[in-house]
C-alpha cells in the first residue's frame, strides 16, 4: 500500500490475505486516476451532465432559524450515493473489471450501482439482506429494471451488515473480474479515503454556495451518519475552517437500550468489515443487532475517519430518535415542500434543535437523499 490507510488509531486493512492484492490494485488505480486529468474530465462530465451537479443550496423559507439545505436529494438516483458510485465504476473500468458487486440496505446504494452498471456496461450484482428485500420491494424492482441482479442474503440478521459480509465473500473469489463497489466511507483501506475524496464535492460546492448566498461560512454543518459517506463528504472541505461539524446518528428507540444505531455515541473500539473503528458489540466482541427507522443508518460500525474525528474532537456526534426524525420528516414536507429520506431527517431533526437554541446561527444541513423510498413506511407510521 502507498498510503497508510490510518486515521489516528482507526482504519487499516483487516481482510483475508487473499483480498490484499485486490485492495492494493484498487489503491493504485485510485491514486493514478487522481493524477489523471482525463479521469477527472470524464467524471466531471458525468456528474454535471448525467447526474445533475452542482446540486442547489436551498435556504429554508419557513423552518425556524437560519437553515440551509445541500440538496443531494436532487441528484440522479435520489441520493448522494451516485457521486462516488460513478467514480468507482470508472475506476473499475480502468482496472479492466467487467462485473460490479455491491451491498445495499434500503436500496439507495444498490440503485446507484445499478445506474452505473447500466450506463457503463457492467454485470451488476447487488447483495441485500432478505429482510430488507421484503421491506424495500420497490427499490429491488428499480435495480432489476436497470439490469442488476438482486441477491437476497439469508445469513445472520438478514440486513445491511450481512449483505456486506456476503459481498466480501463473493469478492474473495471473484476479484480478478469483479470490483466491489462499497457504498460508504467504511471498510478496508482504501475505501474510507477514496469514498471521502469522491464525496468531497458535496462540501466543496456547499462551501462556495454559502459564501455566495450568505457571504460567510456556516456556523455549523450537520449531516446524518450511518457508514458516514455523506457526512464525511460534506465535512471534508470545512476541516480547516472555524465551523462546528456535527454528525447525527440514529438513536432509534432511545440510547438507553439496544435498539439504535448510534455507533459513535455508544460503540467501543473493534474491527469489522475491514477497518478498526467503533462498533456496537457485546462483551465478547460479537456484533450487535442495531435498529433505526431508517435502513441507511441501521449499521453497527461506522467509517473509521468519523471515529478519529470524534476522538480528536474536530467533529461532535449526537443522536436523533426515530420519533424526532419522523417529526422532522413531516415538518420539512409541510413547511418547505420537500420529502427527504428518513436518514436525512435525522440531520434535520438536530438542525431544528440547534436553530431553537441559536436562532442566529447559520446551519448547513446535508440533505443526503429524497424520501420517495420512505413514503409507504411514512404512511404506515404517520398516516
Amino acid at each position, binding site marked *: *500500500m502507498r498510503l497508510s490507510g490510518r486515521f489516528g488509531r482507526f482504519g*487499516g*486493512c*483487516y*481482510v*483475508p*490475505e*487473499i*483480498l*490484499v*492484492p485486490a485492495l492494493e490494485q484498487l489503491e493504485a488505480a485510485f491514486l493514478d486516476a487522481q493524477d489523471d486529468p482525463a479521469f477527472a474530465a470524464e467524471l466531471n462530465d458525468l456528474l454535471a451532465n448525467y447526474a445533475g451537479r452542482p446540486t442547489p443550496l436551498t435556504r429554508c423559507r419557513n423552518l425556524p432559524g437560519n437553515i440551509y439545505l445541500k440538496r443531494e436529494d436532487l441528484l440522479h438516483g435520489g441520493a448522494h450515493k451516485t457521486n462516488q458510485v460513478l467514480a468507482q465504476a470508472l475506476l473499475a473500468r480502468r482496472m479492466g473489471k467487467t462485473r460490479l458487486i455491491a451491498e445495499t440496505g434500503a436500496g439507495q446504494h444498490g440503485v446507484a450501482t445499478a445506474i452505473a452498471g447500466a450506463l457503463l456496461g457492467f454485470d451488476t450484482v447487488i447483495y441485500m439482506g432478505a429482510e430488507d428485500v421484503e421491506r424495500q420491494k420497490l427499490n429491488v424492482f428499480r435495480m432489476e429494471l436497470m439490469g442488476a441482479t438482486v441477491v437476497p442474503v439469508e*445469513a*445472520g440478521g438478514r440486513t445491511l*451488515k*450481512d449483505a456486506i*459480509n456476503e459481498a*466480501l*465473500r463473493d469478492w*474473495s*473469489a*471473484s*476479484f480478478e473480474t469483479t470490483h466491489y463497489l462499497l457504498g460508504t466511507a467504511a471498510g478496508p483501506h482504501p475505501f474510507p479515503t477514496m469514498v471521502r475524496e469522491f464525496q468531497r464535492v458535496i462540501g466543496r460546492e456547499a462551501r462556495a454556495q454559502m459564501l455566495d448566498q450568505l457571504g460567510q461560512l456556516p456556523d455549523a454543518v450537520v449531516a446524518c451518519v450511518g457508514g458516514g459517506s455523506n457526512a464525511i463528504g460534506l465535512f471534508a472541505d470545512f476541516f480547516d475552517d472555524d465551523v462546528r461539524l456535527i454528525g447525527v446518528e440514529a438513536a432509534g428507540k432511545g440510547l438507553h437500550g439496544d435498539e439504535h444505531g448510534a455507533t459513535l455515541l455508544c460503540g*467501543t*473500539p*473493534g*474491527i*469489522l*468489515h*475491514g477497518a*478498526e473503528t467503533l*462498533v456496537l*458489540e457485546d*462483551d*465478547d*466482541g*460479537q*456484533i450487535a443487532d442495531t435498529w433505526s427507522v431508517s435502513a441507511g443508518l441501521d449499521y453497527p460500525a461506522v467509517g473509521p475517519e468519523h471515529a478519529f474525528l470524534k476522538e480528536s474532537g474536530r467533529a461532535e456526534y449526537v443522536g436523533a430518535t426515530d420519533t424526532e426524525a419522523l417529526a422532522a420528516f413531516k415538518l420539512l414536507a409541510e413547511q418547505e415542500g420537500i420529502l427527504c429520506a428518513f436518514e436525512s431527517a435525522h440531520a434535520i431533526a438536530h438542525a431544528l434543535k440547534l436553530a431553537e437554541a441559536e436562532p442566529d446561527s447559520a446551519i448547513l444541513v446535508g440533505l443526503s437523499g429524497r424520501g420517495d423510498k420512505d413514503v409507504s413506511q411514512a404512511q404506515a407510521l404517520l398516516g
Partner: protein
Amino acid sequence: MSRYAAMFERLGGEGAFGAFVMLGDPDLQSSARLLDALVEGGADMIEVGIPFSDPIADGPVIQAAAQRALAAGVRVGDCFELIARFRERHADVPVGILTYANLVVARGGFMRDAAEAGADSLLIADVPTIEAERFTQEMTQAGIEPVLIAAGNTPDAALRRIAGLSKAYTYCASRAGITGTHAGGQFDSAITAKLRRFGAPPPVFGFGISTPEHVRAALDAGARGVICGSAIVDCAARGGDVAGLVRTLKAATRERLAPAMN
C-alpha cells in the same frame, strides 16, 4: 519443542491431518465429544473455530456452525474452557485456534487466555500480513504460535513476511474464496516451494479438502499436511460418523511420504 514441531518430527514424511470444528457447535457437551472423536479417528492436529457473528471468510457450512454455537449461548470463555478440558485429556495433540480479529481485540488478554487453556497457535482470518505484526508480537509474548495464510495470489514480498512471522505451520489457501466443500482446490507446488525457500514453517493446505484424492493432491504438491473443515463440520451436523470420516482422510496421508522439508 512446541507441540506442532514435535508432531511434524514424529510424523516424519507422513502428512499431518488437521481436523477443524467450531467450538460450541451445536452445544458445549456435544462439542467436547466431537473433539475426542477427531482424535479417535486419527487427527494429528486439531483446529478449532471460536464462533463470531460475522465470519466473512467462511462459507455456508462454517457460518451455520458458528450460528448454532452462538444461538446456544456459547461465549468465548466457554471455548477456552473446552480447550482446557481437551488439553487435560490429550496432552500432546496440537490445538490451533482460527477466529476473527474483533473477538481478539474485544477481550483483553485473549492470547494469554488461549495459552493458559493449552492452545498452541492462533490464526486470525481477517488479519493479513500488513496488519499482523502487533498481533504476532502479542502471541509470541503469550506463548502462542502465530499462523498466517498464504494464498495463490500472495506476492513474494508478502510470502517472505509470512515466513518471518509464522511459527507453527503456514496455512496455504488452496483456492480463492471462502471455506466450503463444493470445490476442490488447486494444490499448487509453486507456493509450497516458495515458502520452503523463504524458510516458512511447514505448509499445510486448507480450503477444499474433503476427499482422500484432495489429501493426496495436497501432499503431492509439497504440503506437510492438510486441514479439513467444512466436510467434518457438515458430517457432524448431519449426525454422521465423524471419526470414520477422519480415519478415511487420515489414511490418505499414510499412502505416500511427503517430500522432506528443510
